[in-house]
């Protein structure tokens, strides 16, 4: 009876270990951020791209609009790829685009905007990347969708594509 009980315990333990490892097989060992998030827009102070003056986040997200915060840099090739789509999206009146210029050379960044156009209503300078951390970004490009209640409701890692644009349009309808 006693040996049977020990066997059952060992067997249950082995099954448990097997299930844990089996479940772990499906999980990637690299960071996969959650895209369906809901958190408040961080409170921050940042330098404006053109005027070089400090702006408070409370004065950026003031209107009852949807906002997009796009983390970009002139040295980032995928940013160049997604830029035409952002230009198209900027024509939509129900959404405002805020650019976050990430760890960039200001001269190169201005050249990038002059060359490809400016889809943003405001561009903020994030010279040391700390502002991107406040948003929860870990690279470029990354895009955050903010709803009318000033909550970040979606996070898109990597360049924006047509499918993502459609998803954004559906949400803001």
């Amino acid at each position, binding site marked *: 009876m006693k040996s049977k009980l020990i066997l059952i315990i060992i067997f249950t333990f082995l099954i448990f270990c097997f299930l844990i490892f089996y479940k772990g097989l499906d999980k990637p060992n690299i960071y996969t951020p959650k895209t369906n998030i809901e958190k408040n827009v961080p409170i921050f102070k940042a330098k404006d791209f053109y005027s070089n003056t400090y702006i408070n986040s409370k004065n950026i997200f003031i209107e009852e609009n949807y906002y997009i915060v796009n983390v970009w840099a002139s040295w980032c090739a995928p940013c160049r790829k997604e830029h035409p789509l952002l230009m198209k999206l900027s024509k939509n009146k129900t959404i405002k685009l805020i650019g976050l210029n990430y760890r960039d050379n200001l001269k190169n960044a201005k050249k990038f905007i002059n060359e490809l156009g400016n889809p943003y209503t405001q561009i903020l300078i994030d010279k040391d990347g*700390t502002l991107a951390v*406040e948003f929860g970004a*870990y690279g470029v490009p990354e895009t955050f969708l903010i709803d009318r209640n000033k909550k970040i409701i979606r996070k898109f890692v990597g360049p924006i594509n047509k499918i993502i644009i459609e998803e954004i349009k559906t949400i803001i309808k």
Partner: protein
Amino acid sequence: MKIFKIFLIIFLSLGFIQSQSEEKNNDLKNKILKNIRCLICQGQSVYDSESDFASSIKLIVNKKINEDMSEDQVYKFLIEKYGDWIIYEPTLNKNTYVLWLLPLLLFLLGGAIMIKNLKFKK
């Protein structure tokens, strides 16, 4: 001359206190950075990495410590931004109960079996 000496002592004491506090902050910063995973580099902590992401996190951690945030508050801030994965040592929550409590349960079970066996032998 006496006043000068007093000022010198105060000045040196203040300098000593400041350097002590800086050292303490530095130790805390390094401890935190070693426990933060660099999300874009495989198998490296933020402390060991020189990537853009790691250097931004280093600056943020430094800023938060200077704002008098405790170690737990810094972790909480980072978990809020990036999830539990960013911390090497997982915190106790509903997803990690098994991880934290299983070794304790096994230890208690093993202890109970040992005690029972010892009693049986006596």
